[in-house]
């Protein structure tokens, strides 16, 4: 394999775009860039270090995401990258991109309402059904198939759906 010497800036750009394409294993329409999980890519003496931040403390997808980042960078010819977890500042659903919110909805998951304050956490929610758009919906369970989701039902079209919780 031929290795071409790259400037740190080029290396960082390539590493970022490779890492940014890694998807969440539980919600494969979202990349870690859409989610706001990808925080930083740094280059020190030709070595790449990627910083990610966990969504929920116990999210089991984080280990998988870290592994996928390493693989994506290796495939780009960037060897032995490091993946570091940063806790501060703490991730919130406000970091999810507009593009990410749209993709979630198309996938059938209601995107988090903007605003991750405690009011949004516990306020009067009007979660729109991702299937028919009706806001005549009800909460079935605050805890869904993954840490980040709650289970809702649409009273108009009767479809149950996942809601990405505000956090």
């Amino acid at each position, binding site marked *: 394999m031929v290795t071409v010497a790259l400037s740190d800036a080029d290396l960082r750009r390539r590493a970022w775009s490779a890492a940014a394409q890694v998807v969440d294993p539980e919600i494969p329409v979202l990349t870690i860039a859409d989610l706001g999980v990808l925080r930083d890519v740094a280059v020190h003496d030709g070595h790449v270090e990627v910083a990610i931040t966990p969504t*929920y403390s116990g999210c089991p997808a984080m280990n998988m995401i870290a592994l996928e980042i390493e693989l994506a960078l290796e495939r780009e010819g960037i060897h032995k990258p490091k993946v570091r977890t940063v806790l501060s500042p703490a991730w919130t659903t406000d970091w999810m991109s507009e593009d990410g919110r749209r993709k979630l909805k198309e996938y059938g998951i209601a995107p988090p309402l903007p605003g991750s304050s405690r009011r949004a956490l516990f306020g009067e929610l009007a979660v729109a059904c991702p299937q028919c758009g009706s806001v005549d919906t009800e909460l079935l*369970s605050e805890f869904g198939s993954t840490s980040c989701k709650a289970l809702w039902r649409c009273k108009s079209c009767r479809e149950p759906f996942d809601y990405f919780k505000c956090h």
Partner: protein
Amino acid sequence: MATANIEVSETPLVLYALRRADDALILGHRLSEWCGHAPAMEEDMALANMGLDLLGQARELYTYAAKVEGRGNDEDKFAYLRDVRQYRNLLLLEQPNGDFARTMVRQFFYAAFADLYWRAMMASSDPTLAAIAAKSEKESAYHVRHSSEWIVRLGDGTEESHRRAQGAIDDLWAYTGEMFAVDDSERGLIDAGIAIDPATLKSRWLKTVTGIINEATLSLPKSDWMQQGGRSGSHSEHLGHLLSELQSMQRTFPGATW
């Protein structure tokens, strides 16, 4: 079963992180025992989800304790290679699940505290602890709401559910005082702005708890005698049984990985 226990240098900050990590791990493990046994599918998922939140908090706190200690210990060694007397969790959290009412009362007493505690800890002068607090606070907010709803439903439900919920409150009440206790090791951290004094949260905790208990037509015991010991390693007989299950793999096959 010949794996040696690790030794831990319990400087105040290491001890502080281990105590909170042990709280989260032990309660998280108790909740995981419900997996596949909860009264309804939604509840099974809720309990497993909350257990997972707590496990995540435990991992972050153990990892931080290991970093501060700097003696080559890590999250796995802290969890798997310490014996009962080395565990520092609250006695409340190791109490057996019992029936669903008992699990919910234990959860409610603790979540109502953890919610206030982590919110206050977001102002810690220690950036790692403040960051862990910022995540834990949001998670605890869900836990307290979930358990509050169940307390009301059980207390104001049938004669049977009321009787069981009241019995659990009467039995577990004596373990709640330990949440607000502070020893010399922690006092120094409080004075330095690294930790907050849990005693300052007690009146707000009592207000939340009393409000829900009243709404549930239940009552709190009159006794204010409180059992303590978990923070210094004097545990009830239940923790050993819990650890024998939690640690069985590493104790039987030391160093096993996959």
